[in-house]
């Protein structure tokens, strides 16, 4: 009797131990999953503020505009933020900015002056890339209570793109499609679909 009770107690203890093990593992897995979700979703809510590291001034008629750059020196293909801040604010003003430089599509040159999505008190451009190195310019056409003004920030130098040469990056990215084409070519040679295409239609 005593021995059967102790066996039962042992079985219960072992079972509860297994349950505890499972529960511990489950809890650990849940905590890990929640941590992963928390880590992965936290940056989604934390959009980086616009950090201006360099400024230039442009006189557009009666308006003085401070142009802010998120990176300096500028490099081609980088994701950049630009801010355009008139001295007395953007209220009751409108206009456009025309960017000119090598490799830019014609339809992307002129855009209306819009508030920067992450810095709403000034105009700006967000996640904008300048495609090629060279000399670039920014021309502002502004209409406001003081009338129309036009001014250009000239000779903005854009250096070569960061990182390895583009040819290397493109070569790495071309490996999978080349591999797939090679696989298709082998299948094509083995199966000779051209010989059986006549009866297909």
């Amino acid at each position, binding site marked *: 009797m005593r021995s059967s009770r102790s066996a039962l107690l042992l079985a219960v203890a072992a079972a509860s131990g297994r349950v505890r093990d499972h529960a511990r593992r489950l809890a650990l897995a849940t905590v890990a999953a929640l941590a992963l979700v928390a880590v*992965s*979703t936290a*940056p*989604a*809510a*934390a*959009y*980086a503020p616009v950090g201006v590291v360099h400024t230039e001034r442009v006189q557009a008629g009666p308006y003085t505009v401070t142009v802010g750059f998120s*990176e300096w020196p500028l490099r081609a*293909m*980088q*994701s*950049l933020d630009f801010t355009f801040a008139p001295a007395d604010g953007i209220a009751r003003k409108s206009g456009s900015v025309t960017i000119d430089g090598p*490799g830019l599509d014609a339809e992307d040159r002129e*855009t*209306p002056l*819009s*508030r920067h*999505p*992450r810095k*709403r008190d000034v105009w700006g451009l*967000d*996640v*904008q*890339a300048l*495609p090629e190195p060279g000399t670039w310019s920014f021309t502002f056409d502004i209409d406001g209570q003081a009338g129309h003004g036009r001014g250009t920030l000239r000779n903005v130098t854009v250096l070569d*793109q*960061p*990182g390895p040469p*583009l040819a290397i*990056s*493109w070569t*790495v*990215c071309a490996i*999978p*499609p080349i591999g*797939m084409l090679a696989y298709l070519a082998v*299948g*094509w040679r083995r*199966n000779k*679909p*051209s010989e*059986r*295409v*006549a*009866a*297909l*239609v």
Partner: protein
Amino acid sequence: MSTALPVTSTSRASQPSLAVKVSGSGRTGPIAANTVLAGTTLSLFGISWDIQWHVDVGPDTFFTLSHLMLYSGSAVAGIASLAMVLIATAAQRAGRPVDQFPGGKPVRVLGGVFRAPLGYLITGTGAALFLLFGLLDLWWHSLYGFDAVLDSPPHIGLFLSICFTMVGSVIVFAAARHTRWGRAGVIVSVPVLIVFSPITTKAFGALPLPVEPDLVGNVLFSTLLLILGTLTIGRRITALTIAAALGALQLVLWWFSPWAARVYADATGLPLRDNLGDDPPELPSEIPVFMLLAAATITALLWLSRKRGWSGRIAPQIMGAGGGAVIGLSLPIQSALLGGSGPASAELLKMTAVGLVTGVLAGYLAARLAVLLREHSTASATKGR
């Protein structure tokens, strides 16, 4: 002690593993194929949402919801593909015949360690490549920042990886073309690939070409896939059905992409951009809207080919020329209707010629790829289901 082991091994031998049991179930094929299709559809909706997010709102990180949707699409397809490869391998090791296993003819992988149905091998390879290119993309963003360039090398790698998964999905469904779910899958998976595949041609956007490469890509892939689906299933109205499915997909994306971008902006407290105007949604408006006309042309030329007894060596190129010319002609008209400048007659002529030539190539390739797809049919395993 010595008697326990043989008993255990006998009982194990008489009880096949779960994977082997699953391999024999008639529901395994459609469940796995539709899971992969759900994954590729998630990827498609994720990319359309993400592009629209950049247009309408802007701020970006690696973990925006649209990015997560994009990643989860490849994850879902990849896990389903891995499961099917492992199930096929387990079945083969248990001595079950796997020649007719769903997903296409099995291929020996790693010297025969695995038996992978061709379709799932390609869907899984695409998902694995997506992971690798995702890491490359993360490194790229550490150098270049987030995320101004759509056609960066890692992005093109990611798009190609998703395309591989979508191509594999078409192979999986084509292998079951003798079943209703197989044909329905071809009719849905082909439009998904038609929408997604032209994005990869943005890799050539910086080259000084006489025609925009994404326009050529649009004509090439839509004509090729329309004819491929038609000749694989072999029914006269298939092209029209695929075009109708594409139109439905376009309508849903047209509604979903700006809606999701705005709802997510509201949820995260971000404003919409100033001066948005009334431009149509970015990705859905690039899908050819006159595909039903192209499909009707292809269907008519297929009917004519059969009536006149034209050889399959030439008929697909004729179908491609007709369908490609219609799509090529329609693209500048579509652009004008959706707010662009009115098409000049020279532009219409040029795009019709580009469509015609590209369509001939598309028809040539489509017919031969259809032969390969039809030979990968697993008819006896799936017939009648």
